[in-house]
């Protein structure tokens, strides 16, 4: 039936337009729910002034207003009844319009009235009659449109006269009837749609509430329902985005974020630790983007080997072979990105001849930051598989010398093969632990050092998804520890006085702060270096503040790269300039490596000044002068010093005797509750000796000056070791008293035993 309507619709297009016009007209005339806005009808063009019309208007409007509200409030069960009502409404409007106009045609009106009032009558009849009227109306309208120019304000300004044209309209009744039905249906549909939209809006505005514990339990039993989790993720992100308005009662922000972390972890397959790390680093919406970006690999890139080829020529050759590529970007003159390729890009004769190297875009960055110059002496501390090393060599044009170091022997062949293939001739490949390199290659000898540190790999999850589940907090801490040792070694190898260089570039393929900014901050504290800009315009600056950490403001010169933001692997690049070859003396903190440079100096035979301190150490061994012990005790001394400084707020006087390496005036020191023994580097051959007195203040001045003088004399590598009593000792002043008595019994220079209530006794041995 409907289809037939449609067919007829096409045929009766013009008529339909008239119907539309009429119905729209009627709709426009009608008031909203307000009701009787058009009361009186005077001045409205379609209604002629007169009581009758207004009466009808009122009646009609009332009816309509009653009927409109059921449509708006329409539920699902009311369909038919309301449809009928709406149809009636439409028809009545049509009728009403016509009725309003020809008030003079009482005959017609009288004819129509019974139909109007007869709600129970068959609707078809009503419809037919209405359609008839409408049809005639339209005709009148059509005919009268010509007359509009001559519009006179007579009784029916629209000229909706019925009487004349009824006979004519009878022919087109069927068609018109159907088109009116369609019209009515259309109005109905619109109303339905609006109603539904209202419902939908209401539905969305319904509060999303977090799943209860029972629901979560149920979910955990079943296999994860990914679509459900995904919608929940989206919902939580939406709620968190507009928390004030969208939050559910009783749930605070923490609940939402917790649930989100769980959902993201299960959806993307991360372990809890990593997910929490990422949620701490990014705002909520960005976390999802980041995780999405980690699911897909970054585009493959190549680097033209400028020793053997030019980028333009290489592009032509490869395009001929069927590789779809483009230059990497404005920031690189040698990079190409491969979109797709008919041939394997790693198997072309050009590749085998060493014209280019397959390398990720992010790997270009540390070498660009390093900016090696010709004829320099460069060290690459973690060189395998050799992409960066060969890039350095090509930038240097095979001049100078590069030391390519790689710890793992199994990776040496690939490094060697790449170096030979790319035609690099100035490289020496060695197989050392990076931390030992300064001892081998010499300190303060290199112009530049590149350290692409071994890391957790959280930036290259796209390449290696196993990182998602295998990395834990301990792994990160271990990585960070190693990285700190390596960066110190790197800094130590660089010659600050190099004419052309003096730079270190530290890079990782990780996005975690513990491996990036924290390591740089550590280096800034331990060595005399400065973070400088690496010349990379794009990329986000490193964080100077992150949760509870506060890093040096220069850390903002480092650069971070993210897969979702830059379309390259997650990366971190920092460029340090070595200002001088001095090594700072700072107290050791937790989770940080013993400074190997310092340790080496000690191992070389620094005077161990305060042997009695060894007795105070928690090591508790008898042989306080073991070399191995020495380091430990020095560590502990540092700790004690720090603690003591914290507690007492001032430096303590140093007590040493030149002949004996034991504290003579221990009792005095104990009185002061603070003993600080300062060691001076042995290489200068002298040992400063100061006796502590009860008045620390007086003594410290001259002592300090002496120390400073000695430092200047000794040059830059003086290390001060300040063994301090353990925290325990510091805290337990009372116990000291008893110890003092005991000590006073012991002659200075003799073997002394320190009695530490919690520690074992350690005999003191003489030192040379």
């Amino acid at each position, binding site marked *: 039936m409907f289809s037939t309507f449609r067919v007829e619709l096409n045929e009766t297009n013009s008529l339909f337009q008239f119907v539309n016009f009429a119905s729209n007209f009627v709709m426009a005339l009608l008031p909203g729910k307000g009701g009787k806005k058009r009361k009186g009808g005077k001045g409205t063009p379609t209604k002629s002034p007169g009581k009758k019309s207004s009466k009808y208007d009122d009646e009609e409007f009332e009816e309509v207003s009653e009927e409109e509200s059921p449509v708006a409030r329409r539920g699902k069960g009311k369909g038919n009844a309301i449809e009928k009502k709406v149809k009636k409404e439409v028809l009545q409007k049509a009728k009403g319009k016509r009725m309003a106009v020809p008030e003079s045609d009482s005959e017609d009106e009288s004819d129509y009235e019974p139909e109007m009032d007869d709600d129970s009558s068959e609707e078809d009849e009503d419809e037919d009659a209405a359609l008839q009227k409408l049809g005639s109306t339209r005709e009148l309208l059509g005919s009268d449109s010509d007359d509009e120019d001559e519009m006179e304000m007579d009784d029916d300004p629209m000229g909706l006269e019925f009487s004349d044209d009824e006979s004519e309209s009878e022919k087109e009744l069927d068609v018109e009837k159907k088109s009116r039905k369609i019209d009515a249906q259309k109005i109905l549909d619109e109303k339905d749609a609006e109603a539904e939209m209202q419902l939908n809006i209401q539905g969305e505005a319904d509060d999303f509430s977090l799943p209860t514990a029972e629901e979560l339990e149920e979910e955990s039993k079943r296999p994860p329902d990914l679509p459900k989790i995904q919608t929940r993720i989206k919902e939580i992100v939406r709620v968190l985005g507009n928390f004030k308005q969208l939050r559910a009662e009783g749930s605070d922000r923490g609940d939402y974020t917790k649930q989100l972390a769980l959902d993201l972890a299960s959806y993307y397959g991360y372990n809890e630790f990593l997910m929490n790390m990422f949620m701490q680093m990014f705002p909520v919406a960005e976390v999802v983007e980041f995780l999405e970006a980690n699911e897909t690999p970054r585009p493959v890139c190549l680097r033209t080997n400028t020793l053997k080829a030019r980028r333009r020529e290489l592009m032509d050759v490869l395009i001929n072979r069927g590789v779809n590529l483009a230059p990497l970007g404005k920031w690189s003159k040698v990079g190409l990105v491969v979109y797709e390729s008919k041939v394997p890009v790693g198997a072309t004769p050009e590749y085998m001849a060493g014209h280019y190297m397959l390398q990720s875009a992010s790997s270009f960055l540390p070498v660009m930051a390093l900016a090696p110059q010709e004829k320099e002496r460069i060290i690459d501390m973690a060189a395998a598989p050799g992409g960066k090393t060969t890039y350095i060599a090509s930038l240097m044009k095979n001049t100078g010398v590069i030391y390519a170091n790689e710890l793992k022997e199994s990776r040496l062949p690939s490094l060697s093969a790449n170096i*030979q293939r790319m035609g690099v001739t100035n490289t020496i490949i060695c*197989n050392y632990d990076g931390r030992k390199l300064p001892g081998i290659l010499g300190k303060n000898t290199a112009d530049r050092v590149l350290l692409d540190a071994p890391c957790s790999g959280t930036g290259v999850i796209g390449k290696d998804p196993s990182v998602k589940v295998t990395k834990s907090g301990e792994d990160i801490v271990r990585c960070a520890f190693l990285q700190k040792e390596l960066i110190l070694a790197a800094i130590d190898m660089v010659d600050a006085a190099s004419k052309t260089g003096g730079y270190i570039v530290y890079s990782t393929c990780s996005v975690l702060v513990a491996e990036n900014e924290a390591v740089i901050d550590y280096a800034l504290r331990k060595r005399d270096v400065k973070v400088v800009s690496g010349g990379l315009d794009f990329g986000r600056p490193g964080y100077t503040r992150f949760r509870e950490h506060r890093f040096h403001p220069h850390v903002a010169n480092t650069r971070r790269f993210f897969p979702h933001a830059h379309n390259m692997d997650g990366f971190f690049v920092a460029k340090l300039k070595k200002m001088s070859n001095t090594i700072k003396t700072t107290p050791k903190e937790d989770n940080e490596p013993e400074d190997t440079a310092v340790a080496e100096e000690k191992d070389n035979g620094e005077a161990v000044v305060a042997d009695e301190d060894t007795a105070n150490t928690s090591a508790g061994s008898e042989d306080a002068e073991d070399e191995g012990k020495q380091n430990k005790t020095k560590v502990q001394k540092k700790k004690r010093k720090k603690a003591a400084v914290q507690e007492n707020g001032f430096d303590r006087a140093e007590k040493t005797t030149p002949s004996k390496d034991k504290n003579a005036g221990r009792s005095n020191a104990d009185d002061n509750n603070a003993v600080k023994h300062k060691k001076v580097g042995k290489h200068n051959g002298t040992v400063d000796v100061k006796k502590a007195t009860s008045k620390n203040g007086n003594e410290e001045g001259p002592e300090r000056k002496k120390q400073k003088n000695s430092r200047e004399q000794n040059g830059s590598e003086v290390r001060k070791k300040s063994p301090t009593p353990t925290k325990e000792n510091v805290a337990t002043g009372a116990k000291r008293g008893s110890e003092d008595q005991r000590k006073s019994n012991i002659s200075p220079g003799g073997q002394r035993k320190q009695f530490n209530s919690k520690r074992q006794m350690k005999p003191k041995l003489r030192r040379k």
Partner: protein
Amino acid sequence: MRPLDEDETTQVLEKLHKFVGSNLKHMIERQATDGLDSKPGGFCFRLHKQRVYYVSEAVVRRATNIAREKLSSLGTCIGKFTKSGKFKLTVTCLDLLAAHAKYKIWVKPSAEMSFLYGNHVLKSGLARITDNTPQHQGVVVYSMSDIPLGFGLAAKSTADCRKLDPTDIVLLHQSDIGVVLTSSSRGCTLLNAS
């Protein structure tokens, strides 16, 4: 790492002479451009773990402080001594040879891949050959775009090559860059040549 002794030096130089002929003098007396020392030094050969390396003197001097076990390679590896004491050139020497080669062969694109898989070059694959190539002369193989592909021995002299059937071998394969792909460990073992 140590310099080569007499026997070793003769062996190496003989092999090289096969390929570069009189250009050998140029090769050895080349001035190093690495600019490390104020006075540019030359190149030298060094033996380390049975492999021979061709390095500039300045670089060699800077490698002396690296322990023997820990040194992996320096400069360019040109070949290795086998267990029986013979010297073989490896493909990594190709750049050096190509720079000083006297006799060259150009191979058609259709025969390129075949050569890279380790096959000999047939007459049908031969595009060009330098004149007056004596038989059993060391020859460097190039592709039509002048990319050095490898080296080998000329099976026939240039004059004889013209008389050959299309299926006759003109170049005995010794080494090619395809070893990067075909070797099990992606070229790292540096397959032997002659």
